[in-house]
């Protein structure tokens, strides 16, 4: 049964957290000037995908859903060693919550005849972690989340994972096709090689899929999303003393007068 695997790695473009600010006048989030970067946990996903390919053979295809400039995260993935990249871009995808987002990624994984789909633990912007199990559910595939170690068993068409669970861990064998969400920090991501990086930035062009290419134009976007953002408030920041003390005796005095000790 042993054969090479089609490995799909999902990468998301997110605003650089350090650049997001709150407009002090309007109280709204200012994301527009934030530089767009590859979601940090997705570096662990790309690394996992590349190592699986090294172990089993096959191809690694990076997929992102986003605006045309999200191409940059595909370049990053190809620079790291992914063989190809697919950009899911269409106005129809706009406003998608996790339900249609995972549908679009599930449909492209199917289109690519994926055996294994690798995702990050969660994004650093909306951080729901719902997309990986959502992809698995849409395709009725197996899922492995919070994965700390992976061992491919191509002879059984299986992937064995060590999952982090409350109070310990478990080892689970999942049949292909399978969607994996790897724990943030589960491996040391490699650094892009110079040649590959130059190739990704100058020659590589991703293939683009629209919603209708995937046959899901009726099921994506704002209208197909069960959730909607009903409002955004600035949180009341907790008032802190922010007092620097010079000695532990002074600290003990302060804590005692507050009744903290």
């Amino acid at each position, binding site marked *: 049964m042993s054969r090479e695997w089609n490995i799909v790695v999902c990468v998301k473009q997110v605003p650089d*957290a350090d650049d997001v600010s*709150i407009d002090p006048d309007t109280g709204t*989030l200012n994301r527009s000037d934030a530089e767009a970067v590859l979601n940090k946990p997705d570096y662990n996903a790309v690394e996992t995908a590349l190592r699986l390919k090294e172990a089993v053979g096959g191809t690694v295809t990076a997929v992102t859903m986003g605006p045309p400039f999200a191409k940059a995260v595909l370049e990053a993935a190809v620079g790291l060693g992914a063989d190809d990249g697919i950009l899911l871009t269409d106005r129809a995808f706009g406003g998608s*919550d*996790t*339900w249609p987002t*995972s549908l679009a990624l599930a449909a492209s994984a199917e289109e690519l005849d994926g055996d294994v789909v690798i995702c990050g633990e969660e994004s650093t912007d909306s951080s*729901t*972690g*719902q*997309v990986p*199990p*959502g992809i*698995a*559910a*849409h395709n009725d*595939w*197996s899922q492995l*989340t919070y994965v700390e170690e992976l061992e491919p068993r191509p002879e059984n068409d299986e992937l064995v994972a060590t999952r*982090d*669970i*409350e*109070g*310990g*861990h*478990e*080892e*689970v*064998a999942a*049949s292909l096709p399978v969607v994996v969400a790897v724990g*943030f*920090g589960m491996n040391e991501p490699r650094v892009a090689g110079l040649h590959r990086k130059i190739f990704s930035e100058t020659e590589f062009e991703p293939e683009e899929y629209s919603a209708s290419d995937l046959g899901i134009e*009726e*099921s994506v976007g704002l209208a197909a999303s*069960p*959730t*909607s*953002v*009903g*409002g*955004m*408030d*600035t*949180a009341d920041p*907790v008032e*802190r*003393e*922010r*007092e*620097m*003390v010079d000695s*532990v*005796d002074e*600290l003990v005095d*302060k*804590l*005692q007068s*507050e009744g*903290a*000790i």
Partner: protein
Amino acid sequence: MPGEVDTDEYEDVWVFIEQHESEAAKVSWELLQKGRELADEKGERLVALVMGEDVSHLAEEAIERGADEVLVVEDPIFEPYLPGPYGEQFSELVEERKPDIVLIGGSHTGRDFAGRVAVPTYAGLTADCTELEIEADTHLLLAKRPTFGGDAMATIKCVEHRPQMATVRPGVFDAAEPDPDREGTTTEVEAAVGEENVHSRVLERVVGDITDITDAEVIVAGGFGTEGEFGPIEELADLLGGEVAATREAVEEGWIEAARQVGQTGKTVKPDLYVAAGISGAIQHLEGMNDSQTIVAINDDPNAPIFDDADYGIVGDLFEVLPALTDAIRDEQEGTA
């Protein structure tokens, strides 16, 4: 894709009781308490859902902690947790019984489950809520979650689809206290899952005692700056009768168990005193502890961001400051004893 739903057909608040080896995860009781409030506000029932192999005793406990009805689905296929069978059974139950709201713990198991079941039920699922309210005029669930490092709160609604689902991280709400006099009904449900729903099998499971830091009144936490040496942290925690906690960085290094991780992807804690030593103050860490009463930061970098979110800060080497602090507090305690 399922079509339009008649939202009026959906009622009741459900809580998914997460259990491992027949023991309930504490977050389930926290949600039962919040679920009780929501159900009372809507004038509807609170229903607990328990799945497992040998779990009927949990039904009684769920009633004591606030449930009006408990749905119990007992079958060996549900032990241990696997997303395939759990997801299939849950979808069946939702289709048949039409809950309006479903609350699920934001543990790894809960998030694995919630993400799986929201798709076939076409539910609106909001992650990591820290406030849950019922909107006065519409009776919709207002699911609020911090975003962008806690600088903002987003309110997420699910207007046209049902159920309205939400996950909540452990420690955000207080657990319901059991009341042995409370009454409720237990309904046994036949398992509706076959082998075709099992895509994976658990080969091994290693679970120790689950430490709970969420109720601690004092927490002394260490980060990457400890370089793995938690001795001084433990000594101060012991003296104050508190718990040791850590950043994700320290957990990743294997210095300390994951159950002690504080932050966005760990526990939410609100002790009277939180001492952060060798912790830089990343937003993901702050999210789990910025409701603490008093925060003390010890860091050798005067520009560490943690100082902006602390009440009292000491610039210095934690290996000098912490033992000195422990000694000073011990002297004080002995002096006043």
